[in-house]
């Protein structure tokens, strides 16, 4: 059943990608709507997969690498769809859905989809902590994608060579606003997630994790994105420089998600 749901979700994301890619070259309102509907269906089916996984494991569905990465992809899709509806802009969809398809397929090959075997029940506070933090990473990933597109579009505009898709990309102003919206979502989710994580660690395990490398790096990430939001309003930074900073900040997120989790922390080591 879980395999079927996984395949169905990937299939829907792939179909959604085809529609988004098509409207990038030849815009059609109906096809754009279909792309959004397919993405929405993919998100629903992937949610059902996560739910089935949670029921089967009798635990949160992301207590392992496969689960958390799957949740990351799901939240990326949810965040993008929300931004698409809010900003009424579909031309980024092709990049996001392509990313989702590749991510989901690669995940299947490199992370074991076997059910996790949690050592102890951790409660809803922990579940919210993980969900919110993963959501923040997904939102930051989306802001990274938007910033990269911004930089490409900016470069094309300055070089005066406009390839076909660049006439269909969102305007710089829209990309900028979408990236900032995404960072706002990420910051709020991360702040809440960290607070819940600290509370859980303090009350449930009694551990003092404030100086744990994961917490320190996460604090750096929070500061880095707050700085981005601040400087993106300053005249000498607004525009391409802010987009570059946003893209660079995501390197910190990747560093936290990979190197810190693997080698520096005891509390987030789930590989």
């Amino acid at each position: 059943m879980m395999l079927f749901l996984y395949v169905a979700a990937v299939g829907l994301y792939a179909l959604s990608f085809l529609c988004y890619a098509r409207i990038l070259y030849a815009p059609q309102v109906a096809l754009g709507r279909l792309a959004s509907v397919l993405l929405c269906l993919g998100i629903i089916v992937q949610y059902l997969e996560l739910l089935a996984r949670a029921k089967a494991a009798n635990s949160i569905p992301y207590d392992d690498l496969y689960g958390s990465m799957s949740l990351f992809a799901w939240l990326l899709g949810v965040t993008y769809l929300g931004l698409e509806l809010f900003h009424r802009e579909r031309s980024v969809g092709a990049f996001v859905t392509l990313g989702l398809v590749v991510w989901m397929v690669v995940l299947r090959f490199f992370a074991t989809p076997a059910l996790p075997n949690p050592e102890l029940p951790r409660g809803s506070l922990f579940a919210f902590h993980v969900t919110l933090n993963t959501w923040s990473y997904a939102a930051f990933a989306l802001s990274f994608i938007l910033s990269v597109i911004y930089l490409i579009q900016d470069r094309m505009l300055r070089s005066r060579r406009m390839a076909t898709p660049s006439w269909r990309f969102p305007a710089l102003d829209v990309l900028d606003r979408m990236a900032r919206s995404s960072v706002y979502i990420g910051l709020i989710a991360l702040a809440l997630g960290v607070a819940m994580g600290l509370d859980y660690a303090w009350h449930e395990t009694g551990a003092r994790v404030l100086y744990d490398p994961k917490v320190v790096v996460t604090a750096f990430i929070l500061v880095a994105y707050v700085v981005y939001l601040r400087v993106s309003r300053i005249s000498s930074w607004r525009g391409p420089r802010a987009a570059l900073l946003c893209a660079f900040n995501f390197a910190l997120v990747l560093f936290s998600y990979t190197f810190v989790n693997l080698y520096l922390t005891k509390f987030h080591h789930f590989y």
Partner: protein
Amino acid sequence: MAAITETDRPGAIRVRIALIGCNHVTAPVELRERIAFTPEQALAAADELRRQGILEEAVVLSTCNRSELYGVPGEASMAAPEAMQDFFLSFHGLSSRELDGRFYRWMGTDAVRHLFRVSAGLDSMLLGEAEILGQLKTTYNQALDHGATGPILNRMFQGALEVGKRVRAETEVGARPMSVALAGVKLAERVFGSLKGRSALCLGAGAVSDQVVEHLRSRGIGNLKIVNRTFDRAAELAGRAGGEVAPWEALESVLTAPDILVASVSAREPVLTRAMLERVLEARNGKPVFVVDLGVPRNVAPDAAGLYNLYLYNIDDLGEIVEQNKKAREAEIPRAESLIEEHVARFETWRMALEASSIVDDLRERFHSQREALLEEKLKDMPEVSPDERKRIAHITEELIERVLEQPGARSRQGGVMRGRLGALEALRHLFGLDEGKH
């Protein structure tokens, strides 16, 4: 089926379509303006063509680049295009010598293909231009409301409108800007998105400025100011575009915070220096400024190009983009042609189905008349056959004919199967399935 006429070949019924016209390729503007039809004249001409029996359905398409008569000839005569041409000349009071060699004529599928290419913008002076589709729609709707069209032209023009929309939606033929003015405005949209509520300052009130202002206005620009050395010309342009006007001396004061700057004035030295644009950016708190420099010599100091968040395009930059777009549009022609062929084939399928079903109807009528004659002839010498038995025989023979015609009747409704088979003996053999089951 008033629009269907019989040819000299027995059993074959043809849907005939004829087109004559002149366009920007075959006739210069001095001639085109003499053969143009106003909307009222177009409807009057369509009426007259039908009244004289030259056409049974007629649409007159007249734009600045073409004047064309589309119609369904009422008779089998191959002279319909000549009659249409004579009418065309007499309507405009021209002699045949004046338009000698200027007309093109297409019949049947070629006429359909021509109309579809026109609607797709492939036959336009500016490849892929969008205006022609609107003009075609207006012309057709007026003819339809006037009762000048019938089943054939309705189908043909509806197909043309559909193909025109598809070509623009599914190919790049009409996607990219093809004029310097439009390219500038479209590029501004790449920076700001919607221009609604944005502000623009236009330096100069010449022809190119006029075009840029028109494009800005059509996109709902929020605030438009025009500054020109000749105040009256600026006022005139501002009046037309619904903008504000400021004297040239007030340039520094109005250069406060526009999103878009369009410079198109005649000046030996740049009128917008780097320092001035730095002040604009500062006033805007670093928000991007889009500058279109259409002046020759340039109106914007070249060293301003390096300013952060300033997007500066001069006439050569825009010209190069237009050239790139032109090539991109041309590269899309094969895809557009392929869509056109798809729709031409659809129309042909429909046409063939119409023709084939007519043949079957004719055959049915002939078979029944022969059946009745045969029964009358044979039963005359059979007095022993009772009236009830005669009725049964009549019923059985009727049913026999219907069974024989069942297959060709069904096939005739599948126009795709019939395509290219009519008009030859093989078509009839195929209709009746004569070769099936013999081997």
